[in-house]
């Protein structure tokens, strides 16, 4: 077998074992069990085993099914953008800011739109950080402005401009009906219209954000679940070096 072809792994190479759970609008019965089995089969599960069938609401059944999936993906064909910056240590970051810029880098961040989930952006920006990983404020080389929650794009842009921000950090946690995409996109449009999009590093973050999405929306990078502060700092540095921001 081509080693780049991935199949599900239960306990032995190639067994294709996957687990599914779902609800069908039918009360438990032998026919309902058969329906669940066929439903699983439609997904490409061979020899599906209906492990449980329980009435979870009147006239609805909940099923857990195991089966051998016939599907596979070719890993060699998958190419997604990843943030490839090498992650620097705290000392490296501090030194490089000193040597390359000779001044503090200004960073402005917010949780925008109607989103009030500040914990993520605080984790990246605030001194205290999250789970022992201290935020950018704890670095001598950064001057940090955290505008908090529910900040409108215009407001964020205005503050960033006034502060001569080197980087703008946007957090989007609420993703219902893709409001995060619209909202993030709107910021980019606004900065472009104002003509200074290119002068600033723009980062997007949140649990449902990935680098690919951020790039598509016009950001320089995207950071998802479990992002470490040093990774963000390293990326900002590298990117600023690329766009050649002057020693203000």
């Amino acid at each position: 077998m081509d080693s780049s072809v991935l199949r599900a792994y239960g306990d032995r190479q190639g067994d294709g074992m996957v687990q599914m759970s779902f609800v069908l609008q039918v009360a438990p019965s032998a026919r309902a069990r058969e329906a669940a089995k066929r439903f699983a089969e439609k997904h490409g599960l061979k020899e599906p085993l209906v492990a449980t069938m329980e009435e979870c609401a009147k006239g609805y059944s909940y099923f857990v099914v195991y089966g051998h999936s016939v599907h596979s993906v070719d890993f060699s064909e998958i190419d997604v953008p990843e943030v490839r910056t090498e992650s620097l240590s705290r000392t490296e970051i501090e030194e490089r800011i000193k040597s390359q810029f000779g001044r503090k880098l200004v960073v402005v961040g917010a949780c925008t739109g109607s989103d009030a989930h500040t914990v993520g952006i605080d984790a990246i920006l605030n001194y205290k950080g999250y789970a022992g990983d201290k935020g950018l404020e704890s670095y001598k080389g950064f001057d940090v402005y955290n505008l908090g929650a529910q900040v409108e794009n215009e407001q964020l842009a205005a503050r960033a401009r006034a502060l001569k921000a080197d980087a703008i950090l946007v957090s989007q946690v609420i993703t219902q009906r893709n409001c995060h995409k619209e909202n993030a996109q709107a910021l980019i449009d606004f900065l472009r219209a104002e003509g200074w999009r290119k002068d600033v590093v723009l980062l997007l973050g949140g649990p449902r954000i990935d680098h690919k999405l951020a790039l598509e929306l016009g950001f320089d990078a995207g950071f998802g679940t479990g992002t470490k502060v040093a990774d963000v700092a390293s990326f900002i540095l590298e990117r600023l070096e690329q766009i050649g921001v002057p020693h203000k």
Partner: protein
Amino acid sequence: MASVPVDLGQVEQCRKIASDIADDVQKYIDRHTSVGVERTMLRAFGAEGVDDQGVPIANVAVDRYHRAGLLSRGISTLVAAELLSGATTIQDAAERLAFGVALEESALKITPEQVRATLKPHTDAAIARIDAARIQRQATKASYPPVSNPLKYVIVATGNIYDDALQTKAAAFAGADIVAVIRATAQSLLDYVPQGATTEGYGGTFATQENFKIIRRAADEASVEFGRYIHQTNYSSGLCMSEIAWMGAVERLDMLLNDAMYGILFRDINMCRNFIDQYVSRRIIARAKIVINTGEDNYLTTSDAVEKAHTVLSSQFINEAFAHRAGLTDDLLGLGHAYEIDPKLEDSFLLEIAQAQLIRQIFASHPIKWMPPTKHKTGDIFHSHVHDAMFNLVGITTNQSIELLGMFSEAIHNPMLVDRYLSLKATRYVFSTCKHLGDEIEFKPDGRIAKRAVQVLDEALTLLREVERDSIWESIGNGAFADVKRTRTGGRGFAGVLERAHDYANPILEVLERGA
């Protein structure tokens, strides 16, 4: 029953300080009103409907006179003036206020006494509506067997009120005692209450009076079907907190999320506005004998739950003090707290027990609201389910009153039907298998659990002293709660705050303040 050591002297001091803190604010409250409060009164008199843009008439009328600078006499004064100038009904008066010829200065030359007299039948009717709803609700509830604590509380949030109704029944089928319909993400920032039944919500379903009715009907049907009283909950929070309190009161809601400070901290609602609105909302809630759920649990989703445990307790004393000032009795105070300590922390379970037990003992006659882990949940739904099981265990062992059930999909989406089903199933199991655990164990008097409880109360007292020293206005400015800092004039809705004129009148509020 297992217990932790509680220094009753310290508790008394905390209560005393919280009282002083609230008194300071209450003076401010009593001199002010807000557009939200006035809209509430207009609705309470019976004004209904929206304009051709869908803006509620209550808003149109109140905003118009607020702009005109005449609202400081109170919307009741204006209604009375319209009635005296020929309006035939409250609705007619409201429509005139909204769309009619602007009232002349002269029409306002009525005294508060005249206002009260003119509105007496309408004031009585408003109060009677609350009372009738309360009586009906209490009678219905009494017709079912009592349920033992913790009550099992789940949320539904499909965005479509008819689906929500279906899910309400499904939740009842699976064993829920309380169903809350979650609101759309930004409703708390809206300075009006949407109208009618919602079928296209945004991560939740709007709180509207029609929606309340639809869910009440579904819950009532479920009560009959399953022979258990199904409680209904919604949010009296945000820029319309007092209007929603009114709607909840007359539509027979059993509980309302309602907090003296949540809006300030988590929704950036202006402090002044929020303090005024919470007071009036609570006056209504007190009359309706609805149980409130306060929002201190949110502090721990924002700040670290070990470091900031005491902020929850301090805030509960403050919430209690504010509530007492609005006529709420202890049996209506569902003070919020939560199981939010980082599960990776060794012995974190002991800290959770300590906190839960401490709060249970300090607020012994209060229907404590106990919130599940959320912040440290991940997309690993299997593990998340176990995390909730440990939470359930503390809930039953420390005898919490109202338990919001954890959902294994917390980090992923609003709970689906089966997520709720499985959560209820697991909770029923833990509650039953551990039914008398709390009666069977004792905590070592000098152990980790006891020490933690002592420490949290200590720290809470210290924080309360600081808040008293600085005043609550300043303390919120310094980030005393949830690490969030707000200023007195910042935040949303400040423009809707106004000082009461010396001849301000609010007959409904006056009756509520006088009590039965």
